[in-house]
């Protein structure tokens, strides 16, 4: 399948728009996300942008930069840090935050474990532990709106979630009593202690994200592109050998050329074999792939059919 980008340069774009009054799908998605972000900045007292250092939150941060330019982004960013990080991602996070001059809040899962707020799970995955850490941080900082980079194409529970997704005083999502969302009118009204999760990338697909990264020249951590790495096979996925994770007795480590489609807890996020080393090559690969990014690389979503819905109800991203 051939994909054309809507944006090849300023003069080209201007010429096209001037004659047809049409926007490319990327421009339309961008405008929608910017509208959502401005709406939140105008209607909430203390918004925060959840930033994992993954490609979706990087695109979201770029959109925030665009929405308020030439002013700085008028809210802090928060990283819910599992401690199971890819070094490249943390390095990238710190550099980007410094460039933009925004405040970074780190909510640490390790600290929550040390304080006895949560207990390490047997599997070693800290995915679920993020829920408590996230909700604690929202409460401590009195955040009333939190931007998340979730997309509706990722997962079927997300496909039904609103752009403005209401959370009660326990941080819970109730899929059965969601507020109707019509036109581009978003209802941001909440009582004290409640908060809103806001998803400006709701209507983007994985392919849109990559097309946007390619068209805009958005920088993302190098592990999203093909590189050689020591990995081992577990549950049909390729997991990296890191200081957080070693192969088990029956598992054999080997070198492979891989890239990541998602970046999460390093102990459960799998890599895919790939030779795509530029955004354009990734776009071609994503357009041809026959597995969803979560199905291919996230052990956490394979647990049960409603794994995501269950976590979301408790307050997950």
């Amino acid at each position, binding site marked *: 399948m051939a994909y054309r980008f809507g944006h090849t340069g300023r003069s080209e774009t201007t010429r096209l728009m001037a004659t047809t009054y049409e926007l490319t799908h990327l421009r339309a998605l961008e405008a929608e996300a910017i509208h959502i972000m401005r709406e939140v900045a105008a209607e909430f007292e203390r918004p925060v942008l959840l930033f994992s250092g993954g490609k979706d939150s990087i695109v979201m941060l770029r959109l925030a930069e665009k929405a308020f330019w030439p002013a700085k982004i008028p809210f802090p960013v928060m990283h819910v840090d599992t401690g199971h990080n890819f070094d490249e991602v943390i390095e990238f996070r710190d550099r980007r935050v410094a460039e933009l001059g925004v405040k970074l809040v780190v909510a640490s899962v390790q600290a929550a474990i040390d304080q006895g707020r949560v207990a390490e799970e047997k599997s070693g995955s800290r995915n679920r532990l993020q829920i408590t850490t996230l909700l604690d941080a929202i409460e401590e900082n009195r955040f009333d709106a939190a931007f998340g980079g979730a997309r509706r194409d990722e997962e079927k529970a997300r496909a039904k979630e609103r752009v403005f997704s209401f959370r009660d005083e326990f941080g819970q999502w109730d899929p059965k009593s969601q507020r109707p969302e019509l036109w581009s009118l978003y209802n941001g009204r909440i009582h004290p202690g409640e908060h809103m999760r806001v998803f400006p990338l709701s209507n983007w697909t994985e392919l849109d994200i990559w097309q946007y990264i390619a068209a805009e020249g958005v920088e993302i951590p190098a592990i999203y592109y093909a590189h050689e790495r020591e990995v081992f096979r577990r549950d049909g996925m390729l997991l990296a050998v890191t200081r957080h994770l070693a192969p088990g007795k029956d598992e054999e480590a080997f070198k492979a050329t891989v890239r990541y489609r998602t970046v999460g807890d390093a102990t459960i996020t799998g890599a895919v074999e790939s030779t795509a080393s530029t955004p354009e090559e990734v776009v071609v690969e994503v357009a041809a792939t026959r597995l969803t990014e979560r199905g291919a690389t996230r052990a956490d979503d394979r647990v049960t059919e409603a794994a995501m*819905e269950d976590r979301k109800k408790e307050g997950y991203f």
Partner: protein
Amino acid sequence: MSELLRFATAGSVDDGKSTLIGRLLYDSKAIFEDQLEAVERSSEAMGADYTNLALLTDGLRAEREQGITIDVAYRYFATPSRKFIIADTPGHIQYTRNMVTGASTADVALVLVDARKGLVEQSRRHAFLASLLRIPHLVLCVNKMDLVDWSQERFEEIRDEFRSFATKLDIADLTFIPISALNGDNVVTRSPNSPWYEGASLLHHLEEVHIASDRNLIDVRFPVQYVIRPHSDDFHDYRGYAGTVAGGVIKPGDEVMVLPSGFTSRVASIETFDGPVPEAYAPMAVTVRLEDEIDISRGDMICRPHNRPTSGQDIDAMICWMSESLDLNPRDKFTIKHTTRTARALVKNVQYRLDVNTLHRDEGVESLALNEIGRIQMRTTQPIFFDEYRRNRTTGSFILVAESTNTTVGAGMILGPSA
């Protein structure tokens, strides 16, 4: 260039809607193997003897357990020429509010009928809701044509019946396509089974239908969403009005008026992060700067001095009621959100309730309950700057929010100022 097209479908289990969506997604490679495997596993577990593609969209636990679609599901696929967003909604009357929600942003409505049954109450209702929400294009898919031996006569009979019904509605562009979703006839490619049909396949039609001129490019409407004041050394006195264009084409040099103040100025520039642009139109999100320093805040409306929206507090509107717990009654007060402006609204009266199946106006009613649609008169605490919904879907729409629970209880389409 690849454009974005949003379409809405509504339907129930047996009219083949899920099969049709499944086929569009599958044939455009938007269904992934792991999703299909998961659906196959679930279908088997539920004892179905075929793969139930509805399970692809019915993602919530309650939906899977009860085998029903509860909510609007958004699905995505793309072809080289367009990216599509499907708002897939349940078709039963008890889900009218979900259909209205899905229809509110749609460019195209897909209505399915079973060729054997012809038009039924549900197909009329879907068409009516599509016209009420001003979806500019409607496609009637006459499905299961294989079960009527691809009878041209049957297709034309349904087409003519629908056309005559549609004269009561206000639908700008009507298209009829004979299909078999199960076998894929006329879905992605033209089928040899219908040599008498000269139109395009459904997908081809969705790729080609002209939507750019559906937007209002005449009446300049720029609701101010957010005022940008950087307070930095490089942009010391910078003051920009950020927002999303709701109508018309705005250009630098244009004379503009700001409501409610009535002050006039000229557009100095239209700016974005990527640089200034020579013009802006819906739905671009831009920052407008004016030549004069005027006091402007969120909720104000930038327009042209000789083409202004109606400014008023007494409004007639069609309302779709969405609350499970409370009815809409005269004297009720709500928060109203219209463009970027928030005020309070008082319901003065319910003029009639509309039967969404027969279009009959029931004037003997006092209130509206869940999923009911009716015409009301209301008064707002401050003026809002509106156009008729039929002229502009953005400046003509609003939501009502219950003040006690903060939930969205009503969706409104403005008919005009109260007489």
